């Protein structure tokens, strides 16, 4: 088998072997239903309580503010729909941004159909939401602000603290989609005035199919999924105990190595960015130059198309992505890249490389070498490049 260099850690990550190890007993040994009375299910209840404690600790929250979900998408849907429902009598205006993940954007659009009004804040060329624009958008009937902690495509980290302060000042609920940031960046919900926060285990070497929504105590949010009395009557359905155990273990391991890992990733990422920017012509770095996730690099290569690039990288054993993996069902250029002002044809030629804990300097160097070759090759096939070269020659000759 050929070696694979996996640089798509924003799409999903490898589950750490220790996490799988921790989950295993809960499939065949401690398989009880946590809602049961008998002692046989005690290990399940304890394990769930432990994960809740670990997560609460990681956010400066308390255990009964953590609600397990089946992932980030469900958490986002729940936060937006339940907040809209709960506070409809106060108002029907919601503020979010143009660069949210589809889990928030499409939920916003759904709420618009139900009669809510949604403001999608623009961002600057680095993908940063303007706090001033937010302040101007606030209205007396605004009930919810939802701004992602860090963007999944371009890695920009948003000014969450300032946004939280605006929300607090106006008594508006503040939700943040922290799916890309949780366990990658330190987060304290009180310091940042966060009322709700979504996270997903598979983005930090935990299992797929489990995540959580933090809901600040006192919020009158109802269920999104109705049924049994699980999760203090707020999230029905038999709990995914092995998944929840894996989530807890992944949080513990990630937190323990977060600082070190960030340092290592930043170094590798900066090396990657430096080499690409200096060795490949006609390329743009997308996202904020410094205020970005330590594992994210996003480039636009002029004159070439992203999918072709991905396929050729794949042939070289490199996994990258063009826009968000979740949306690759669609052919439109990424809404995030359009929001930062890229013209369509440049947005199409973008590549996201996201590092993980296993990425090495050799991987990065190999990737850049291949990238140079592939970009050159694709450009040699591109009519856009041909036009460009010809018009440049013309200018030079004049």
């Amino acid at each position, binding site marked *: 088998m050929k070696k694979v260099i996996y640089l798509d850690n924003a799409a999903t990550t490898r589950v750490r072997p220790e996490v799988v190890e921790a989950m295993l007993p809960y499939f065949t040994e401690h398989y009880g239903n946590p809602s049961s*009375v008998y002692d046989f299910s005690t290990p399940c209840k304890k394990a769930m309580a432990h994960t809740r404690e670990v997560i609460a600790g990681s956010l400066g929250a308390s255990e*009964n503010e953590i609600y397990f979900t089946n992932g980030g998408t469900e958490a986002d849907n729940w936060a937006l729909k339940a907040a809209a429902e709960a506070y409809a009598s106060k108002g029907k205006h919601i503020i979010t941004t143009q660069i949210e993940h589809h889990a928030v954007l499409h939920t916003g659009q759904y709420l618009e159909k139900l009669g809510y009004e949604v403001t999608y804040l623009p961002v600057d060329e680095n993908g940063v939401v303007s706090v001033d624009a937010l302040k101007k958008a606030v209205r007396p009937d605004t009930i919810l602000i939802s701004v992602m902690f860090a963007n999944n495509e371009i890695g920009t980290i948003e000014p969450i603290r300032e946004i939280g302060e605006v929300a607090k000042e106006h008594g508006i609920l503040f939700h943040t989609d922290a799916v890309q940031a949780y366990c990658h960046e330190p987060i304290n919900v009180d310091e940042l005035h966060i009322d709700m926060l979504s996270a997903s285990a598979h983005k930090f070497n935990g299992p797929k199919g489990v995540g959580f929504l933090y809901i600040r*105590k*006192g*919020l*009158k*949010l109802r269920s999104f999924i109705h049924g049994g009395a699980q999760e*203090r*009557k*707020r999230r029905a359905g038999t709990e995914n105990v092995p998944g929840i155990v894996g989530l807890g273990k992944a949080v513990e391991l990630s937190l323990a190595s977060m600082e070190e890992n960030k340092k290592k990733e930043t170094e590798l990422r900066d090396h990657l960015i430096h080499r690409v920017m200096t060795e490949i012509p006609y390329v743009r770095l997308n996202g904020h130059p410094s205020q970005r996730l330590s594992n994210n690099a996003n480039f636009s290569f002029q004159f070439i198309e992203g999918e072709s690039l991905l396929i050729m990288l794949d042939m070289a054993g490199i996994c990258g992505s063009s826009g968000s993996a979740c949306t690759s069902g669609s052919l439109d250029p990424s809404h995030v890249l359009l929001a930062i002002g890229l013209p369509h044809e440049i947005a199409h030629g973008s590549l996201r490389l996201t590092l993980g804990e296993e990425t090495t300097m050799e991987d990065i160097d190999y990737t850049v070498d291949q990238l140079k070759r592939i970009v050159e090759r694709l450009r040699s096939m591109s009519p856009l490049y041909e036009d460009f070269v010809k018009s440049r020659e013309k200018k030079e000759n004049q």
Partner: protein
Amino acid sequence: MYSDKVMDHFEHPRNVGEIENASGVGTVGNAKCGDIMRIYLDIDDATHMIRDCKFKTFGCGAAVATSSMATEMVKGKTIEEAMQVTNKAVMEALDGLPPVKVHCSLLAEEAIHAALWDYAEKHDIKIQGLEKPKSDISEHDEDEEY
């Protein structure tokens, strides 16, 4: 779910049974969950000392354990002292109960009160602080803790 003390009293309930010709008998039911508890008291008419106390309970683990503990706590006490055995005191003696089970401990308190009331009626005396027992016990629904 339950503390070791609760489990001990459930597994080895003290004072289960009946007292023939008891001085006072009280039976109460819990409207919320349909459970029933009966307390028998044997009281010394001269000293008002509770010489013996027995119970029967149709109820959950918490109901059985609180009955058992409550009978232990009132035995050997005077009527006046027994009036101080509240559901809170019983719960504390059991190292606590899960929140959804707090109401079960009310059964024990009310059953003792009902038995004392029966005694007071039979002897035509008045017991300080004792009110006519309700036939149904229920507390306000604890709201979901958000």
